[in-house]
């Protein structure tokens, strides 16, 4: 009943194209934002911020970037981790070369570096397709991580080869570095994520988004109806890598505080890919649902034996965790191959017509 759409009339095309043609969707979103902006910060402790909330947001953002490329434009990429690395290293260089630069500007700029690298590695997509392209993006993955390791200029020639985030202030508040408060970092990440999500929703439902979808569904057909494939594919790589790069900068600056090259290696790429698949390809909402499942679930599982008083060693928990994540992925693929976003869509359908079955 809450979701009854009856009686909500549209009198113009403009109204019909609104972001929320159904009022309840807007309310629901408002409710979630209220929780995210008010309820969670008021109740969470530092562990929850650092191990659950911030990582979920950062991973969701990275997944959003990948989803634009894979879910909307149909170009499979396994190089997300390396592109996150480009964003992180670019941000580190910007911050250390221009210490007075505002961190928001630095993060926004670092996305452009990653976008440029993304376009360069996206060029083969004009010739190569499907799994061949996926393996080709692995070339970016391995080459870039190797570069992070070898190019000492990137980490300012420090002896350990890792980058450390200095303390960075903005408007009198420390937002990054060891002295930053978790709640400040949470708000920072939340704002960036909301802004980019808003941008992503609008770009994917606009002209460019439709071009991407047509390329995804069949690129030759798209080309025949006059779409410039090169422009479409490269713009997808650029936008996607930009968002992934920003996520990478947030990943290191607002969450981890330090990074070594191996952090951006293939497991990170796979993790983001899992989120996209479990969440749902070609869906914005799915990224968040997927991130909650993939990032938060293992953290919560690791508490279960302790909470129940089971005498299970932490190594065993870790093994079981790996198995559970693997089984969850298989299970979801079998039950709902279109991801959690589709699951929500089904629930919403049911709610709209409730209490009637049809």
């Amino acid at each position, binding site marked *: 009943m809450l979701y009854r759409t009856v009686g909500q009339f549209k009198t113009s095309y403009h109204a019909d194209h609104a972001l929320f043609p159904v009022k309840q969707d807007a309310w629901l979103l408002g409710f979630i934002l209220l929780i995210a902006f008010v309820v969670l910060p008021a109740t969470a402790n530092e562990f929850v911020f*650092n191990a659950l909330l911030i990582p979920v947001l950062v991973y969701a953002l990275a997944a959003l970037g990948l989803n634009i490329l894979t879910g909307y434009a149909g170009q499979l990429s396994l190089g997300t981790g390396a592109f996150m690395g480009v964003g992180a290293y670019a941000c580190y260089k910007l911050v250390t070369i221009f210490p007075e630069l505002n961190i928001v500007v630095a993060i926004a700029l670092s996305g452009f570096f990653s976008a440029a690298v993304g376009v360069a590695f996206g060029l083969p997509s004009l010739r190569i397709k499907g799994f061949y392209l996926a393996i080709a993006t692995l070339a970016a993955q391995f080459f870039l991580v190797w570069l992070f390791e070898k190019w000492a200029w990137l980490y300012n020639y420090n002896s350990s080869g890792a980058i450390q*985030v*200095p303390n960075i202030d903005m408007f009198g508040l420390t937002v990054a570095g060891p002295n930053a408060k978790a709640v400040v970092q949470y708000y920072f990440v939340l704002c960036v994520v909301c802004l980019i999500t808003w941008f992503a929703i609008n770009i994917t439902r606009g002209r460019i988004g439709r071009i991407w979808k047509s390329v995804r569904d069949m690129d030759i057909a798209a080309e025949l109806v006059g779409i410039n494939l090169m422009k479409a594919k490269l713009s997808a790589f650029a936008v996607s890598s930009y968002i992934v790069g920003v996520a990478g900068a947030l990943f290191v600056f607002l969450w981890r505080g330090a990074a070594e090259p191996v952090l951006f290696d293939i497991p990170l790429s796979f993790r983001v890919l899992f989120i996209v698949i479990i969440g749902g390809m070609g869906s914005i909402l799915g990224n968040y649902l997927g991130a909650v499942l993939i990032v938060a679930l293992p953290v*919560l599982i690791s508490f279960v034996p302790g909470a129940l008083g089971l005498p299970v060693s932490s190594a065993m928990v870790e093994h079981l965790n790996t198995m559970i994540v693997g089984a969850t992925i298989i299970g979801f693929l079998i039950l709902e191959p279109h991801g959690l976003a589709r699951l929500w869509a089904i629930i919403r359908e049911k709610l709209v017509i409730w209490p009637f079955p049809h």
Partner: protein
Amino acid sequence: MKTLMRKSALLPAVFALAAALGASPALAEDAVNVTNLSYRTGPFAATGTPLMNGQRDYMLMLNERDGGVNGVKLVYDECETGYNTEKGAECYEKTKGSSIVTQPWSTGITLQVLPKSNVDKIPILAPGYGFSPMSDGKVFQWAFNPPASYWDGASMILKNISEGNLDSLKGKKIVLLHLDAPYGKEPIPLLQAYAEKYGFTLLPIPVGVKEMQNQSAQWLQIRRERPDFVLMWGWGAMNVGAVTEAAKTKFPMDKFVGIWWSGHDGDMKSVGEAGKGYRSISWSLPHSESSVMQDIKKYVLDAKKAEIGEGEFDWVFYQRGVLISMFTVEGIKAAQAHFNTKVVSAEQLRWGLENLKLDEAALKAIGMDGMIAPFSTACNNHAGHAGGWMLQWDGAKFVKVSDHITADAEMIDPLVQTEAKKYAEANAPWPINEECKM
């Protein structure tokens, strides 16, 4: 509608659960929690497990034999990291509320938690690993790497292979075969300083984590370069791979020396006779007949309180794990005496670790004489610089083949100070311990 309501009710509920779980569990009055960020899984599990077992069993033994430390039970927990920095950071967040010490167990994780140590005020104990400049206690007030840093290790190895006369290295070529990670890169700055001063050529050869088991390219390079010595900063499966390849390329084993983490019985066992002659520097000596090891056998292993692998009891790594736990325990003891309290806090433990006095008598009293060289820490010296011995693999076990070797403070100290200063500047504002006048 109901579903929606249930859903919305569920969210805060799940979240409250997580909050409750994340909060520090209330400790009983007479217990301290010492959590270890262990790794018994992942590609480095083989080397991690005996160390973790040793750490655990010493704590268990004290609880069984003495009821803990001066009546305070030791709660030994593990948080599994799999040597993964991301998991490590998560474990750090999880345990920092309850544990009075952080043992990060990887140079990567150490670098990750190091900047937070000043804010969270929990001492980091990284025995024989971590960031070498941490030995400067004025800058790194909360970090400890007793009894020796990697730079100590590098210096000790050079001293030994030159038979005490570093000038004899002039014109020689030394290869550093290292894991391509922060850990492996640690000794490079010091070795470079040595190379400049004593006129030898240093050639670092990195081994990527993915290439650990397939080092033929690295060893072909070694064959081509014909170095006089190969030093190794290897870990996990890399050690086995390297020794196997060395045997294959017919590199003389007695010219091949590893750091203390590359001298693992389990690794060498799988190489067997082929590894005969391989040496590894070590700050600990296995001594299964010492009274502490016998007590562990009696109270823990024979009493079936814990299980270890066959033969593991005599391993260098297992007994080194015992020593590592000893540092924490002795730190607790020192803090208990100084602050006249039973249950020490993280801040008090910091004082204790800074004032470790492990002389011959103290080591004898805890039954560890002959297992480690005597050393003490101070507010400017968080490493202790205990020195160590050269161990050699005789085909079945490691045996001591040198007298006690100490590191070369003249070479190391200036570098420690410049690197520590660089770190503090890069992380400004970074608090320096001004009270320390040493």
